[in-house]
């Protein structure tokens, strides 16, 4: 097992001389934070059901150069307006942008004075044991993107294709994405992960008034992979965040989303479908904070678990004092289709305001056998009937994607997955 010092030593590459002092201090402090706590472990409530022990044992010690399995060759889910990242590092400049959109590599942005950027980067907590992956990411701050959309500009779509080469000395890679939408701006962000080894990605997003971010993310990572994502989002008045996550991979995926509805009329809709097979593990930790009155949020997550698949859902909604007239809905439904699969679901609703409309529910069950019989009684084979029903169960999540092109592309991947599946 790798010690924290061992992990940091494998990752540690000093910051370029051109970077400002504050950024070096930020990295140093994060490094200390990580050294103090090490990788998150199951004694931490936030990591109770998801162990990264395999990451320390597996990635850092055994996966070396040239052990890629072809995952990096997979074509992006959508082949237009693609920016490719390998091992967390942008390897091309991506699509052309309309006036008012700025996209640059993080390393380049850091070399210039930028108070807004500094404010965002310094906002994350790197000293808490449960945030050790954030500390690690910050200690290794280097690769990533800074994307800014000016007031009223529709940036259109950006597809990020995350791939791995496993050519590096250590197959744990960190990346940071900083996205700012000015008032009235919009962006459709699509992310497609097909990554071996370990990737630890943090998105920091700032949504100005009336801005709209649509975010669709899918992962089809191979076995023995670790994808750790974290989305930190601050929303201004009447802004909107629509997020859909599709997990089809065979490895471990841990997704944290933290939305702060800071001003009235902001809304975030989070949805996800996960279909762990084999020994795949998918963990969603959602934390939506209603800080201002008249905000809305929803969490709609559905899982289908086969084999020894594991899923964790922890969805928290916190309506703070004064956030009156809020609306918050949460639903997590799971189909447990194998004796050896396991799901741990925990909806948390904390309401400290008045006139709040809230609902939450979690279910773990099997397919409706009467529905299976209904389909069979019309001539459809049993296996096909079961596939049709499990497909329908998770398709409803993908159907919520507004953009038709993205929806169809994700649906095609989901259907492929369902077809391969037994």
């Amino acid at each position, binding site marked *: 097992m790798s010690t924290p010092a061992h992990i940091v030593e494998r990752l540690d590459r000093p910051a370029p001389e051109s970077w400002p002092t504050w950024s070096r201090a930020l990295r140093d402090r994060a490094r200390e934070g990580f050294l103090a706590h090490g990788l998150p472990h199951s004694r931490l409530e936030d990591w109770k059901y998801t162990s990264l022990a395999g990451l320390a044992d597996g990635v850092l010690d055994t996966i070396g150069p040239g052990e890629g399995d072809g995952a990096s060759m997979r074509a992006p889910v959508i082949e237009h307006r693609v920016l490719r990242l390998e091992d967390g590092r942008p390897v091309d400049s991506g699509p052309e942008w309309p006036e008012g959109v700025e996209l640059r590599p993080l390393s380049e942005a850091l070399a210039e004075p930028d108070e807004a950027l500094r404010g965002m980067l310094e906002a994350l907590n790197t000293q808490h044991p449960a945030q050790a992956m954030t500390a690690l990411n910050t200690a290794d701050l280097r690769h990533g993107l800074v994307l800014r959309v000016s007031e009223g500009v529709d940036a259109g779509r950006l597809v990020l294709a995350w791939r791995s080469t496993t050519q590096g000395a250590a197959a744990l890679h960190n990346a940071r994405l900083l996205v700012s939408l000015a008032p009235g701006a919009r962006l459709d962000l699509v992310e497609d992960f097909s990554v071996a080894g370990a990737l630890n990605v943090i998105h920091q997003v700032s949504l100005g008034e009336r801005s709209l971010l649509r975010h669709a993310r899918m992962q089809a990572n191979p076995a023995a992979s670790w994808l750790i994502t974290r989305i930190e989002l601050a929303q201004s008045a009447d802004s909107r965040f629509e997020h859909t996550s599709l997990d089809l991979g065979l490895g471990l995926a841990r997704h944290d989303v933290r939305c702060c509805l800071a001003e009235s009329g902001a809304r975030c809709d989070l949805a996800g479908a996960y279909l762990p097979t084999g020994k795949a593990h998918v963990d969603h930790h959602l934390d939506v904070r209603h800080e201002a009155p008249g905000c809305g949020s929803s969490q709609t997550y559905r899982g289908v678990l086969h084999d020894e698949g594991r899923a964790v859902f922890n969805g928290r909604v916190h309506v703070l004092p004064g956030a009156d007239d809020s609306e918050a809905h949460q639903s997590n439904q799971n189909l447990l289709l194998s004796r050896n699969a396991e799901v741990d679901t925990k909806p948390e609703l904390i309401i400290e305001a008045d006139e709040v409309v809230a609902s939450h529910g979690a279910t773990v069950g099997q397919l409706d056998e009467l529905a299976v019989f209904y389909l069979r009684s019309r*001539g459809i084979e049993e296996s096909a009937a079961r596939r049709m029903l499990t497909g329908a169960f998770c398709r409803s999540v993908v159907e919520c994607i507004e953009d038709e092109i993205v929806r169809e592309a994700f649906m095609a991947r989901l259907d492929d997955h369902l077809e391969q599946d037994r």
Partner: protein
Amino acid sequence: MGPNGSGKSTLGNVIAGREGYQVTKGRVEYLGKDLLALEPEERACEGVFLAFQYPVEIPGVNNTYFLRAALNARRKYHGEAELDSVGFLKRVREKLEVLHIGDELLHRAVNEGFSGGEKKRNEIFQMAVLEPRLAILDETDSGLDIDALKTVAEGVNRLRSPDRSMVLVTHYQRLLDYIEPDHVHVLAGGRIVTSGGPGLARRLEEEGYAWLEDGGIAEVAEAS
């Protein structure tokens, strides 16, 4: 026909192959085959169709997609080429027209959010598309208002043909005002206790099932 608990739905479900029933005695021979040895989907492909008393809602499965899968499963079973979407839609639209059903049915998920009448109409529509040899309609008239009843009856009448048998399970004569049966069988305690023509249904409507118990069963038993 038959009183509550007489085994009408059980018979339909056993013939269609629903789980949860054990056949302890007897056999079902259908077109020379031992029906009970077949899986439910094989029975369907052999031409058995059960219109459900309570059609199941299947959210997320589109009616068109479902019907096409069902129809193509049947064609595959018989070694025929699958219908492409153009051929399928053509067939479906013909049936809709014949049954006077609007095509909004095609765009909805199977039975999801349907009213009682819509669900029953959807069963008749499925029957029309799948063209079974033996259709069992389990209380298709229950819970329907008079207009929906007429629609269902009209659908059934249009599908009547010399090479198709239909078994209507019903409590009421009312359905038979619109569908003239060839035979009426009365089931009680799991067996057919009397049989007759359309007149038998009318007598049951007037007198209930009690007269059967007062010797009617014996009469029939002696006659057979």
